[in-house]
């Protein structure tokens, strides 16, 4: 038993002095396992792709996911949002599969802050990259400065403040994205463990009753991460804010809905 515990320690959540911790190799193993599952499902789904009507149930699920994310991209970002479907769908699949992994195993990639922080940094870095690509480097920086206030004094006083707040906000987006996911998944684990301890005396795993809620959390967290990423992309790929100049009412409505969605999730 000690031999097993010693060799499997890097791969499973080990409790030491009341703290649960999974090492680098453990998280890497879980991540590889999740990726293998995703690629196996994709390979299986590809079998029915050449048919006129998709009959493969896994492919149907992927198709619905693709259409959902495409609709979300177009609805949030605009007609040019289709080109972000690939990155958003990849994020969605990895997060969802990792979350589902957390239902059956003592740890999961998304139950680790380091992994989530990596994803958040990639997401926010990609948003900055898209912002610079769309508006240019200085245009993107100017975007952080807030709207043109009209008054020079106000501009000198307020705009640097807004700039500072926006920069802090951009940095904290990484923290909020990673901690939200970590908190929900790891929180689910802790809640299940605590409830299991309640039933230890009578041999009833009360934590199992949390599985439906945890499954809902798996979907919702994947959705929130991708929705926020699409909102962030939408905010930086719009040329101007609606108060200054907007091409159409649709653009304004989309911009406002993005802001509302972001505010609601936060």
């Amino acid at each position, binding site marked *: 038993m000690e031999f097993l515990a010693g060799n499997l320690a890097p791969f499973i959540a080990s409790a030491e002095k009341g703290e649960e911790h999974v090492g*680098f190799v453990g998280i890497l193993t879980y991540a590889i396992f999740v*990726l293998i599952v995703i690629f196996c499902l994709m390979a299986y789904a590809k079998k029915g792709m050449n048919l006129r009507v998709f009959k493969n149930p896994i492919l149907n699920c992927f198709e619905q996911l693709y259409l959902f994310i495409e609709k979300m991209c177009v609805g949030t970002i605009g007609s040019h949002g289709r080109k972000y479907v*690939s*990155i958003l769908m*990849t994020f969605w699949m990895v997060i969802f599969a990792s979350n589902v992994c957390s239902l059956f195993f003592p740890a999961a990639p998304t139950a680790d802050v380091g992994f989530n922080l*990596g994803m958040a940094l990639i997401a926010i870095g990609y948003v900055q990259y898209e912002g610079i690509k769309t508006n240019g480097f200085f245009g993107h920086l100017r975007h952080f400065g807030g709207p043109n206030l009209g008054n020079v004094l106000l501009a000198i006083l307020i705009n640097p403040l807004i700039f500072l707040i926006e920069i802090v906000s951009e940095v904290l987006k990484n923290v909020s994205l990673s*901690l939200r996911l970590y908190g929900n998944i790891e929180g689910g684990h802790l809640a299940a463990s605590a409830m299991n301890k309640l039933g230890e005396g009578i041999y009833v795993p009360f934590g199992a009753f949390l599985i439906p809620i945890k499954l809902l959390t798996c979907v919702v967290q994947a959705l929130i991460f991708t929705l926020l990423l699409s909102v962030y992309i939408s905010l930086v790929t719009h040329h101007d804010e609606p108060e200054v100049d907007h091409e159409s009412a649709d653009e304004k409505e989309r911009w406002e809905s993005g802001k509302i969605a972001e505010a609601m999730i936060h």
Partner: protein
Amino acid sequence: MSESHHETKSGPFELIFNNLPVRTVLGLVLMFGGSYVSKNYQEVFEQISHQYGVPVDLGKTVATFGVFLIIFPLVNIFFIKPLADAIGERNSTLEQTFGEAEDLKVQMQKMRSEYEARLVETEADARQKIEAQIKEAQALRQTLMSEAAQRADELVARATQEIEAERNRVLTSIRTQVVDLALSAAEKVIAENMNTERNRKLVEDFISQVEVAR
């Protein structure tokens, strides 16, 4: 990171992110770098974890960078692009099929309207022909009836003439026989020596008077 970068002009970012081998190598380097960081700075991370209560390991973060740098293009090429193409192709096939169905429907409606117009035309033609035939038949009937009536009149007239002639002939014959009988009777009554011619004249006058009186 996604297919969107293909349309951008090549800068240093595009040079890295659009090149799959470069990305793969960079991803592997980051994964091994993350492993190195995680192994060598474990104590620092544990200290941070104890201090702030968040078990953060930046080595995992760096390795995650590497993993995603590799899997983004892989997932895109392996699955998402074929899926998007298949959905697009299916949608275009469906649109084409719906378009063909719409064309067929329009064609069918056109044929139906043509058929109905032709049916109406045929019905009108048939009705016209029937009316013409009826008119012709009525005319023929009229002609035949008038001819029959004329023929009947002729027959009646001829029969009347024949009856009249026969009556006259019979009357003449009767009249002759009556004269003969009267003469015979007168001969027997008056006996002989009588001018037969004169007597005959008398008798004929008498008979004529009798006929007029009748």
